[in-house]
């Protein structure tokens, strides 16, 4: 039910979390389950109920973007996803994204999505090299990616993203080059490339902790990041966030909202939300979400209200990840100048943005600026000598 009177309004996103997967990837620590298939119908019902309550409460006004994430949203029967989407009031040009596993989509499913208003697909590709996929604990055949992309285009969904992951054990530089090349051959307007990150409570995290599998190597990942930036940027898809590249006009509107401290509503278990400096998150397990909704209660598990200083720190940390960069607090000007001299920041009018090398060190740069902007209490001592 798209609405058409949205000009000049503040953006509002809706994130819907679908916590079901066919198999779990070795590196994944997201809120997702492979053994809760029996809950799916009840879960969809609960999302619908949750949405209706929020609309009735006036909390959910027409959205500028909708994002189905997971988990694997494309595991849902097409009409199930449509039932949820139909409950979300949307503006005329709203961006509606569904994260898809290339294994679990086909022409009919994607056509149903498109008819319901889905206009963007994000495919979990990770790698186009079978041995790298195996190292990641992924099951799909790279050929499925090609089929899925073609099917999406057939269905009229042109706004496509391919998610890539680099740095898996056994992935050579040549493997990564091949993945980038194969991804670009599919001509996606948008590519996300994420460094494989070891999270302790995952099969990969346990293997690394036990020493049976080497963790990703920082230097290897740095080289692959630089390669990705060259290749993707050189293909007419400049970076617009640390891990995201897109043709101008194809940046993900929904994600931009996150990085700009915009407002978004979270539907489903483990979904996060933000409104005007209040961040909140829902109960993590799908059973708990069902209970809360069935009991007529809010699914919210916790919230925090950011004070102005924390909000400003957060804004800096988020904005620095984007191409637009951030404005630097006066107290951190000297640190910013030092980082600029070190080749990590570039100045653009009143703002600073990360250079390529700086993007690889985004955390370090952010932490330095934040530390410099905060009055110091540390006891520094004379250097080196007694």
């Amino acid at each position: 039910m798209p609405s058409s009177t949205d000009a000049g309004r503040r953006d509002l996103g809706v994130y819907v979390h679908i916590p079901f997967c066919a198999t779990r990837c070795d590196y994944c620590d997201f809120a997702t389950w492979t053994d809760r298939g029996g809950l799916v119908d009840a879960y969809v019902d609960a999302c619908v109920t949750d949405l209706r309550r929020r609309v009735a409460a006036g909390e959910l006004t027409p959205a500028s973007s909708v994002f189905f994430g997971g988990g694997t949203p494309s595991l849902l029967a097409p009409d199930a996803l449509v039932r949820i989407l139909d409950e979300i009031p949307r503006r005329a040009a709203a961006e509606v994204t569904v994260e898809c596993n290339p294994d679990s989509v086909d022409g009919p499913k994607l056509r149903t999505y498109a008819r319901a208003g889905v206009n963007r697909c994000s495919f979990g590709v990770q790698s186009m090299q079978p041995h790298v996929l195996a190292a990641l604990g992924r099951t799909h055949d790279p050929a499925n990616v090609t089929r899925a992309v073609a099917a999406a285009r057939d269905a009229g969904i042109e706004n496509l993203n391919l998610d890539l992951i680099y740095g898996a054990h056994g992935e050579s530089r040549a493997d990564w080059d091949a993945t980038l090349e194969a991804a670009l051959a599919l001509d996606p307007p948008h590519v996300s490339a994420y460094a494989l990150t070891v999270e302790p409570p995952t099969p990969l995290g346990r293997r690394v902790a036990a020493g049976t599998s080497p963790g990703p190597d920082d230097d290897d990942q740095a080289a692959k990041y630089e390669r990705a930036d060259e290749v993707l940027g050189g293909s007419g898809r400049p970076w617009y966030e640390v891990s995201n590249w897109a043709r101008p006009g194809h940046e993900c509107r929904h994600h931009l909202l996150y990085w700009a401290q915009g407002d978004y509503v979270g539907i489903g278990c483990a979904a996060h939300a933000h409104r005007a400096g209040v961040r909140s998150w829902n109960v993590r397990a799908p059973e708990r979400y069902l209970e809360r909704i069935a009991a007529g209660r809010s699914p919210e598990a916790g919230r925090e209200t950011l004070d102005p200083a924390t909000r400003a720190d957060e804004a800096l940390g988020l904005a620095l990840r984007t191409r637009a960069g951030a404005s630097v607090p006066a107290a951190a000007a000297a640190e910013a100048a030092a980082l600029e001299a070190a080749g990590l920041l570039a100045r653009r009018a009143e703002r600073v943005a990360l250079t390529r090398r700086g993007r690889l060190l985004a955390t370090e740069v952010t932490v330095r600026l934040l530390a410099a902007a905060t009055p110091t209490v540390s006891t520094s001592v004379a250097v080196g000598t007694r």
Partner: protein
Amino acid sequence: MTPGAGLDIARSRCFSLLSHVDHGKSTLADRILELCGAVDARSMREQFLDSMDLERERGITIKAQNVRLTWRDFVLHLIDTPGHVDFGYEVSRSLAACEGAVLLVDASQGIEAQTLANCYAALEADLTIVAVLNKIDLPQAEPDRRADEIERVLGIPAPDVLRISAKTGQGVPELLDAVVDRIPAPTGDPDAPLQGLLFDSYYDPYRGVVSSVRVFNGTLTTGARLRYLQAGATHEAEEVGVRTPDPTPVAALGPGEVGYLIAGIKDVGEARVGETVTGAARPGAPLAGYRDPKPMVFCGLYPVVGDEYADLRDALEKLRLNDSSFTYEPETSGALGFGFRCGFLGLLHMEIIRERLEREYDLSLVATSPNVEYRAVRVDGAVEMVDNPSAMPPPSELETIEEPYVTVTILTPTDYVGPLMDLAQARRGEQTKLEYLAEDRVELVYALPLAEIVVDFFDQLKSRTRGYASLDYEPAGYRPADLVKVEVLLNGVPVDAFSTIVHRQEAQDYARRMTVRLRELIPRQLFDVPIQAAVGGRIIARETVKAKRKDVLAKCYGGDVTRKRKLLERQKEGKRRMKQIGRVEVPQEAFVAALRLDES
């Protein structure tokens, strides 16, 4: 025979118990107190021996103790002595307060290194020795063989060696009779000017300093004005008493009596072991043998958390009220922040002080590796004592460096002579004696640099001999040696906490070990950081911490911004606590970890 000046000096005996660790000294003391009807053993233990937790845990005595007992119609003054080589001076003062000593030897173990050391110290103090074999009730006891050994090694006739079981009490009355019969009565003139020897002092929060005192001449009277000859101070004898073992005030102590003295003193440093007390009005001569306590081993002590510096200072102040034999002065380290350079009588003393600081004052401390005090002889002949490696002058200004030596006596079963000789040789030891005490026991004597035994020599000795060898040592002056200071530099800036002085041959080894360890512990920076070790400006080892290339979160998923922000907040706090060594930022934990690795 009431306590006090009315004591018949001919019916007094002052003696100590001497033994190697674990040969049963505490048990024997329990038994003696029981036999003399002093107290029941349980409350006695709490009041008398091993009063600190640490002493009980480690099975050693740190402080001298004394108790006054009645046996038949004699008064026995039993003085317990510290049981470790670090406290050799305290032992010598305790012995100076006695006319005799009971030398306790385990009837299965036989003579150990401390038995020898104790026996020599007692002979040096001119004491009459009553040798006793203990634990004769055990099946593995070999009293005949051990008695022969005592005769051969110590020159005490085998038939004179008593045989007891402190555990069962067998032979203990005979031992007390022997103490009365063999150990001479004290001599002294009650009307002469007062001469009293302080052989222990501790700080009591309510009473101030409580000292143990042996009167040689004159009379120590409650209320008298006293002169402390070494401290050059005058105090009033607020309370004079004897320990039975309950402290019992008396009017006076005469010659040949041992008791306690409270004189309104707030700092044990003013009532040191070895001090002579005399009458302010009619002073006597100082007793011989006083020495200022002299630290032998030094290290830097730093709070792991910088905020605890003031707590550490307060704790050191309080602890020193109780133990004037350790020293401390503030020092600042680029790597570790604010702390103290502390001096100790020996390695055990250092461990005890550190443990008490952590345990009784709830501090978390890191210690730099222990070092000895060097004599730096400059080219112009000037001599400087250096107790901190980072203060050692550069080689160009030095003629020589001299280091303290010790004479180390090792007693071992013959099987382990080979491994022990290897160990001593690896530590630059020079053998001065190898003697068979029996066909299966050997005495080895070495001249060794003190620095070579302060770190892990004792542990090595124990592990190479499966615990069967024993060790004792005493200072043996200074000798020049080919020593160098190894400095560790981080991006060209010296890191004081890792400066050390080693023999030239060991410099390379230390340099390599430390640079590799720091390379593993120091986080990558925005630029390459060289870690170098240098001797006199010449680099002898180098490692590099490669510049950090990647430090970025791949993704903040599903709008979970909170997690990312918290991560940044934690890192921001960490950044603010970094130690800055030149341009290099190092978390203090990295330095602490490097030093702790050195300890293990």
